[in-house]
């Protein structure tokens, strides 16, 4: 048993029982981050903070929200938006936050891709991050259903319908997911459960895994150079802070993150107060009506690129139905990012601009995903359908060609 002595104060009292000083060292003052980074390295802390903001605003909304198809719409649009003191603020924060967090997730993801931070021992960071992306997507989708507006209903209808394309079990699976033969009260209550309990729990677990996955391989630098963390941290502790290539998580790393975060919050709250329609689609202020299909059905902006891959195939090819082709591509698009560490066959960890072939691949990917997103929202008619088709094919080709591109790059740079 540990030696418990009369404590010298509150901190010491806790330290004797919980080893708080050791814990603080391990988690904060001696958790080493490379110094050679830029503000893109603050996205993780912004994401964690945004998750906190969503959690807190969500708890407030949960006190008044009613998961019932007859009550949901008014509980959101009347009770929360008009009756509850500052209920509108919590809803705007929650709705805009859910959208903006995806902007930061994408920046975070593409930062990782650009700097090659998914390889040489960092594969688990990437995979746990992709797991978080999938969980946040499910959280976003289930949350969007809750106000039970027109887009809630029809998005739920379209997205749950996608599962019908899975061979053999498809039809039964759709009924199982919906809890009924059509999108109904049972669908709403189960997505409510997923949104407020199961998925948030999974997200918290995955965040823990993601943070832990960073400990062993450490964070990448903006040059991709390896840092000898043992030597450099000793140098820092010895007092040579200026020449050490590492900084402690607290206070040095977080001091910068805190500045980036507070600047980001100015932008975020500007959106919350003045520019929220992009995240709270006006169409969803029409109550759900199963007899009236909206003129345009589209998902939230962060799903548009994969939605466009789904509907990009609008004609049968080689005897395979257009719907099945779209579904296969959709499954491919959503799964392929997980495999990125193995598709990139070059061992080089460096920013994309120092990799002659990968550089081209990276910027093409960005462009294709933006084109997919824009055309995922436009009505898929006339030439739009063809742009969607070509960009969907381009997306698939880009990922299929990544191993070849990186192998060629490896050979050319030897």
């Amino acid at each position, binding site marked *: 048993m540990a030696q418990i002595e009369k404590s010298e104060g509150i901190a010491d009292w806790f330290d004797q029982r919980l080893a708080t000083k050791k814990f603080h060292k391990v988690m904060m003052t001696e958790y080493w981050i490379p110094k050679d980074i*830029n503000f893109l390295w603050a996205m993780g802390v912004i994401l964690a903070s945004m998750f906190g903001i969503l959690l807190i605003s969500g708890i407030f909304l949960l006190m008044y929200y009613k998961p019932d198809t007859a009550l949901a719409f008014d509980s959101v649009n009347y009770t929360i938006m008009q009756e509850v003191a500052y209920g509108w603020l919590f809803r705007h924060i929650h709705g805009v936050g859910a959208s903006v967090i995806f902007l930061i997730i994408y920046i975070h993801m593409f930062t990782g891709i650009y700097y090659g931070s998914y390889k040489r021992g960092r594969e688990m960071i990437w995979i746990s991050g992709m797991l978080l992306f999938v969980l946040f997507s499910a959280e976003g989708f289930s949350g969007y259903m809750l106000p039970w507006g027109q887009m809630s209903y029809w998005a739920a209808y379209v997205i749950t319908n996608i599962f019908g394309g899975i061979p053999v079990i498809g039809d039964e699976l759709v009924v199982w997911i919906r809890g009924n033969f059509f999108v109904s009260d049972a669908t709403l209550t189960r997505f409510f459960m997923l949104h407020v309990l199961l998925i948030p729990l999974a997200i918290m677990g995955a965040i823990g895994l993601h943070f832990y996955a960073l400990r062993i391989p450490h964070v990448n630098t903006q040059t991709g150079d390896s840092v000898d963390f043992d030597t450099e941290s000793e140098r820092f502790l010895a007092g040579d802070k*200026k020449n050490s290539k590492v900084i402690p998580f607290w206070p*040095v790393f977080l001091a910068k993150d805190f500045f980036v975060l*507070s600047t980001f919050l100015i932008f975020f709250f*500007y959106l919350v*107060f003045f520019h929220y329609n*992009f995240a709270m689609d006006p169409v969803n202020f029409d109550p759900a009506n199963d007899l009236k299909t909206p003129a345009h059905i589209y998902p939230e902006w962060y799903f548009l690129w994969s939605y466009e891959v789904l509907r990009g195939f609008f004609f049968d090819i080689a005897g395979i139905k257009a719907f099945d082709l779209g579904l296969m591509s959709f499954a491919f698009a959503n799964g392929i990012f997980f495999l990125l560490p193995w598709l990139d066959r070059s061992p080089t960890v460096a920013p994309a601009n120092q990799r002659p072939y990968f550089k081209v691949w990276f910027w093409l990917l960005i462009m294709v995903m*933006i084109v997919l997103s824009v055309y995922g*929202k436009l009505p898929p008619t006339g030439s739009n359908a063809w742009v969607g088709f070509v960009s969907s094919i381009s997306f698939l080709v880009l990922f299929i060609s990544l191993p070849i591109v990186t192998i060629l790059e490896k050979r050319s740079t030897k």
Partner: protein
Amino acid sequence: MKEWKILGVLVIFTAILYIGVEPYAHSVMHPHVSPEDYKFTDLNDIKLKEQGNVKNGETLVQSNCTGCHGLKAAGMSAPMDKATSASVYGVVPPDISTAGLIYDKNYLAHFIKNPAKAAKLEHKFNAENPHPMPNYEWMSDEEINDMVAYLVSIAPSHVEDKKVFEEACSRCHSMRYDKIKADSDVTKYMGSYPPDLSIMIRARSYEFLNTFINNPQKQLHGTAMPRVGLSEEAQAKVMNYLESIGDSKKQEREELAPWVLGYLVILALFAYLWKIKIWREVH
């Protein structure tokens, strides 16, 4: 500086994506329409005069209109209660006391002459299926002019925002969040259910609503909603009212914003100073 360059790249790509999926995509889905026409210049069969014979107008209104319409301003209630008239006509004929104020005069004259045409509902009402209010095409322009002059003379000089909504909209549309129930269910008569307007101000853009109310066919071709002919001032009152119910916290939102944003700017400033202080030791 490198970080500024990175920020620039981020901002540019975010802006391209934003413009593509928001303003651009919406401009494709909802093509721009010509602005509101509060003079209803397409209606030009009758040349209205500056003055009219109010006395003659009164006689004409009493002999032609009050058989169906109430005229409380002149002490006449509607001949039937709302439920009865709704079942007889399919819709409740409005009390016309305020008509001279809230509707454009040119519109009003043409509506009397040919309601379906003025309301742009000729695709719904025609010889086989006549508009509930008959045409008064047999009247001379002079007589219609006199009736409009009379309606203007008895109209109040001012009406509340909510009153305009009740007169012009609530015979078909409900406003649940203000406990207004539509006078009658016109689903059968109109062929579709007129939506509740409680939060319509959030469901459609300001520009859409303004052009739509002014001329529904422009935004929703073939819709059963009539053009009601509100004057510019009256329509502004309807919009105010829609906003006061559907976006009732707008003022609170706009008043709170500077405090929150101001706080965050100060926070960011201190955060920057703290960052400088901490990083001075390591750079």
